């Protein structure tokens, strides 16, 4: 029989062969429970991965490409040097946009430290130019040299180095999530294989009797495969559902720019955890099939 036909057969009730193979008792419950618990954990790991991924992406976009050029010059030269710097920047390859911050914006940046009423315009404080890189980025050393000649008071200030560790952390958290999912998946596969093997070993007597009275391997294997696959599917469905419910119930803080206050799924992502039970069923199918083939091969 082909693999596909075998797999489809799992979902077709066969009261008779189900009855012939004895109830697998604790191994059955074990499979159900293992699949459930692992699916539950997998949902959380998935949510963690997705949330960190979202975060890393956003920081990647918002921050990694943002660079500031600061003009510190005597008050009367500021305007001229600013204009010069803007010209240089606009003609530099790898820069997407250049914008001089307004006084209001600069004030906003300072307000956490000095309050809202600093008279920015009257002060000899530097002017700030916000630069957005293209994806390719620009040649920082070359730009610094050009700025030095055209606008000696301009300092290129790369924000990435302030924010980089955060992006790295988010990325690491994301890979921690994916690694957990892989480990959980592998552990589940191993556990279901072992449970199926245990069930087969416990039923060796039954299998022997069935072989002796003329049952084919397919007939015997089918009953075991069906049972374990359906159990893994059922358990994983329950586990994944409870996991999703738990995540749905998590209080969600508004701003998901902040780490993990938004540990949840977004719209269509809610369908992702539903893949888990399907995977569990497929894993159980192949695990039990291999185990049954091996166990049967040992009998004449």
């Amino acid at each position, binding site marked *: 029989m082909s693999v596909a036909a075998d797999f489809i057969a799992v979902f077709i009730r066969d009261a*008779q062969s189900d*009855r*012939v193979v*004895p*109830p697998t008792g604790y191994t059955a419950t074990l499979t159900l429970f293992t699949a459930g618990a692992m699916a539950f954990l997998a949902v959380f790991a998935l949510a963690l991965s997705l949330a960190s991924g979202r975060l890393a992406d956003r920081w990647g976009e918002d921050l990694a490409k943002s660079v500031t050029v600061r003009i510190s010059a005597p008050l009367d030269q500021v305007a001229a040097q600013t204009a010069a710097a803007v010209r240089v920047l606009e003609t530099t390859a790898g820069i997407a946009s250049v914008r001089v911050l307004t006084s209001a914006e600069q004030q906003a940046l300072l307000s956490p430290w000095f309050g809202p009423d600093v008279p920015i315009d009257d002060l000899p404080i530097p002017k700030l130019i916000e630069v957005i890189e293209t994806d390719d980025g620009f040649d920082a050393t070359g730009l610094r040299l050009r700025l030095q000649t055209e606008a000696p008071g301009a300092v290129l200030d790369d924000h990435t180095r302030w924010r980089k560790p955060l992006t790295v952390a988010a990325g690491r958290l994301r890979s921690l999530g994916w690694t957990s999912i892989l480990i959980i998946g592998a552990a589940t596969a191993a556990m279901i294989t072992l449970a199926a093997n245990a069930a087969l070993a416990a039923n060796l*007597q*039954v299998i*022997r*009797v*069935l*072989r*002796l*009275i*003329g*049952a*084919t*391997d*397919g*007939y015997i294997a089918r009953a075991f495969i069906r049972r374990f696959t359906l159990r893994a599917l059922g358990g994983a469905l329950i586990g994944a559902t409870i996991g999703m419910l738990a995540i749905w119930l998590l209080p969600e803080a508004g701003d998901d720019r902040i780490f993990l206050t938004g540990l949840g799924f977004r719209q269509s992502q809610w369908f992702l955890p539903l893949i888990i039970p399907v995977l569990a069923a497929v894993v159980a199918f192949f695990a039990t099939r291999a185990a049954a083939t091996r166990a*049967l091969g040992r009998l*004449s």
Partner: protein
Amino acid sequence: MIEFKSAGYSYGGKALFGGVDLDLASGSFHFLTGPSGVGKSTLLKLCYGELRPTEGNVTLFGKDLHHMDRDELAAARRRIGVVHQDCQFLDHLPLDENIGLPLAVAERGVLKDESNLKELIAWVGLSQRANALPPELSGGERQRAALARAVIMSPDVILADEPTGNVDWEMSQRLLRLLVELNRMGKTILVATHDLQLIRAAKTQVQARVLRISDRQLQLAGADL
């Protein structure tokens, strides 16, 4: 039906018997006897392919055991009814379903209510116990059930390994009558037993040949039996 051609068997080097030539022709009735541990059950296992001969050939229904694949073997077994010495059942199914199991496995459906099954159960004296689970049966009841399961499919060949070891004399006569009747219907029968009384009783009812394993050879027993 089943043919041995200079067949022999040894478990890990220790030869039990060798050079066995035997033809279980259609409609024949054979007894197999010999002291405990001589290889009677082993010879029977060769007849239904639980073991393959370590020398020579065994042919089931014209096909050499060495060249049968697993599904062919399963098919051949559906034509052979076997009473195992340690009558094995599925402990989670009631007796009647156990006896009907060969029908279920041959995918002819579970015929719990078939009159043939009921009649057979009555013949082996188990009507009262039809709904009991195998572990709830007495030793003799299990043996009778095993015989019933072996014949339920009306197989071409019936192999019985010590089918009367745990039943009293009257019951053993009753079981023998069942086998004799099946033989008259044309079934091929081979019974391994150490019960010489049973063999003597059978010889009055049917033309049976008595085989004996001794000195690692299969011999035809003399007229003393």
